[in-house]
């Protein structure tokens, strides 16, 4: 059973009297545990597609099904909030950490808003995930006391701590040097294998695409290439 199914999804932005189509009838299926990269030039619709998949934006037309049964377009705003709270993890290009919270608290934030997790369990989960992303001993540091790579690891930990079924990452390595980029990608790959979490991330960095197990190319809001496997033909 697929985790996510997009059926003829369209997104049109209205700029004054002009309609600007960003996504033009995309249909896709994402299986559980996939490690998928969406690539394409700037303005091709990658971020828009991720936002629609992440329920941050609504499609103008088409349907999105989650685990085959849940039709996301029928959910109310509050139901969409709850859906994101329990099922999705986000990693942003800018880590978007809260500067007045420590690394521990930033990660904890994602599960503090989920009911039914005890304080002890929460602490264990946060410390465990921080260890997994290599931030052991840095729990009490605030974002301004961390390097760019470390901040992005905190953001990854925040996305993964609630063990979501799907993590969406919008150009997660765009602000990092190549060494840090590789480390971040290795961590995500490790989590994908360890936890079975499905990852979808957008990029136009060939180095990132090399890690992908599925490559989806988007141009002018349409899927122009979709390939899966171990040794993919990564465009340079």
């Amino acid at each position, binding site marked *: 059973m697929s985790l996510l199914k997009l059926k003829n999804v369209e997104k049109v932005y209205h700029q004054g009297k002009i309609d600007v189509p960003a996504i033009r009838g995309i249909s896709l299926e994402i299986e559980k545990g996939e490690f998928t990269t969406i690539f394409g030039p700037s303005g091709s619709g990658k971020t828009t597609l991720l936002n629609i998949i992440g329920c*941050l934006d609504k499609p103008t037309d088409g349907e999105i099904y989650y685990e085959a049964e849940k039709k996301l377009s029928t959910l109310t705003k509050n139901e969409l909030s709850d859906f*994101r709270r329990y099922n999705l993890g*986000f990693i942003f290009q800018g880590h978007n950490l809260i500067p*007045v*919270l420590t690394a521990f608290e930033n990660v904890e934030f994602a599960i503090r808003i989920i009911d039914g997790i005890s304080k002890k369990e929460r602490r264990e989960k946060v410390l465990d995930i921080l260890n997994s992303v290599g931030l052991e001993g840095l729990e009490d540091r605030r974002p301004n006391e961390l390097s760019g790579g470390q901040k992005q690891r905190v953001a990854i930990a925040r996305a993964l701590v609630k063990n979501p079924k799907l993590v969406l990452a919008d150009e997660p390595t765009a602000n990092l040097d190549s060494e840090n980029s590789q480390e971040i990608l290795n961590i995500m790959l490790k989590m994908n294998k360890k936890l079975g979490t499905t990852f979808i991330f957008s990029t136009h960095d060939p180095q990132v695409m090399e890690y992908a197990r599925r490559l989806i190319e988007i141009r002018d809001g349409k899927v122009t290439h979709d390939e899966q496997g171990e040794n993919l033909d990564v465009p340079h």
Partner: protein
Amino acid sequence: MFLTKLALRNLTRHKKRTVITSLVISFGIFIFLVSDSLMVGLSDMSLDNNVDLQTAHLQIMEEEYWANKDEMPLDNLLKEDNKIIKEISNNPQVKAYTPRLYFTATINNGREDYPVKVIGINTKKDVEVIKLDEYILEGEMLQEGKFAIIGKGLSELMDFRVNDYITLLFKTKEGTYNTIDAKLIGLLDTPHPNINKQNVYIPLLLGQNSLNTGDKVSRFLFNLETREQSIQLAEQFNRRFSQDGMSLKAYNWEKLSYEMLAMLKQGNIENLVMLFIIIILATAGVINTVILSALERLEEIGMMKALGLRAYEIVYIFVIEAAGIGIIGSTIGVILGGIGVYLLKEVGISLSMMTGGETTFGIPIAENIYGGWNPETFFFIFIFGILVSVLASILPARWGAKKDPVKALYHK
């Protein structure tokens, strides 16, 4: 709890902004508390001075005299040796009573005239009701004979000294002009500026003889055990007068001070204006702070929405932050206000300094005004400061929280 912790931590993000917004609220609260304390002090002192030196606790006069009392007419007078007054003065709550005869005159020093209020008093009984003898600055208290005492302000204005002769020109009961030449034997310096500047006291008999009123007086003034008894006692006396079909009427101290009470009510309106100013200051400060914070944190708002926070939870963060500013501002304001009120209570402030010199605007206080202490106001304004901050933050917080998550995340 976590959102509350986050909101309170947010106060430390822009410490200067938090401090400035809090100080704006503190300033408003400080001004309100000081102003309220002044009004309480002003009210208490004004009423005390008026009752102690002018009206006494209760007065009895003809009902028709009351209607024209400000003109101090010489008709509708009462007999000095009044049976009913004697009878009711046996009431155990009555400590003392005295008759008085009021009329208008002009005082002359040989060069110029000045309008004055002349009060004929019973030299023995009057001091038991109105303790003018405690305020003799120079010379002595009034005695029977062709003597007079006046206030320090009037003596300075007309250049009179003790042992000088004053001339009072007035109309008798029949409407003919008459004069009194009286030796000035004492100068008064009371805390009531009107008494110091306008009043001339002469013996009652001298007044009655000069005005041809016979044994008539304008009013009887009563001193009771406590000021509060006057309301109930006036009602009791009035019932009695009514039963006997008399046109006499008793007036309690509140009725006798109605003009002043009206003026003090005006002061309460000023306090409401101060409250309004606090609302404006705090609202402007808090709205500005919340909007700036929301604008700076748009990406964070987007991230929180992506994490699954609902709009009301984001509003909650901003509202608690504003409540924090309100608590800081109110606390500082109440502490500063407490210091200000303490100083006002202990040191006081000169009314003439406040009003810029000459006039006291009819306020019966010649000395420093001392602030009053009103703990309820402190509690009220503390809560009020927080409440205004919270309410002012709701709309801008909703504005921030309702931002489209995509626009918030990618607003740059």
